[in-house]
């Protein structure tokens, strides 16, 4: 039974890690754009 919840949790963790990675890249990019604007 635990395997079922672990599997679902794992799937979502992987999705969220990727999305978090994208957000971090976006934030970094925004900072670079500000630097360029100066």
């Amino acid at each position, binding site marked *: *039974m635990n*395997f*079922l919840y*672990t*599997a*679902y949790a*794992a*799937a979502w963790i*992987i*999705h969220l890690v*990727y*999305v978090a990675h*994208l957000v971090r*890249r*976006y934030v970094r*990019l925004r900072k*670079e*754009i500000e630097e*360029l604007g100066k």
Partner: protein
Amino acid sequence: MKRAFPILAILTAGLLSYGLYEALVAAPTDQLQGNVYRIIYYHVPSAWTAFLMFLINFVASVTYLIRRNVKADAIAVVTAEVGVVYCTIVLVTGPLWARPVWGIWWTWDMRLTSTLVLWLIYVSYLFLRKFSSGSQTPVLAAALAIFGALDVPLVYFSIWFFRTQHPQPVIGGGGSIDPRMLHVMLLNWAAFLCFAGLVCWSRYRLEILQREVEETQALEALLDRRPQ
């Protein structure tokens, strides 16, 4: 265009929640496997989504080689990344399903093995994109994507024949599927397709923005070097 994103996001959230409910609660329990089989509602749709991503990557790569369209190259990198994410989920949920049901974490059967090889090919694609120098990356990556796509049927044949010669328990067996289960499967697939669409869209906008920034930075560097 910009308003479509939040609408799609809400739709996706709805589908995913409904899909989760159906998968965990509403779908009938399997007689042989008990409740663990429900992993299939995440495992299989993820696999189908990954394959679709890789198919789009192939089309985008070929388009890039023919037309040298920058957008096609951006789509290629986006779908490769998202495809690898979904493929990883397949490879993680697979053993988690196999262990309680068949007693083994891994077996070199058709589905798991071919998914693993696919994963390896596209991870190597992402490595190439990361390590090659900017100007030639799109062309090299497109060539590799084509090689990968050509490899896929050969991978299937080799595993199929290997299994024929060295038979082993078949994981996730054949047989007809309960129509109620199929309904839940398709529902979750629709949900994950929408989610993949959202993520691809965001990643694509990030990619385009990144390229614009890099171009601007390059221009700045060029202008800065001009003698005052």
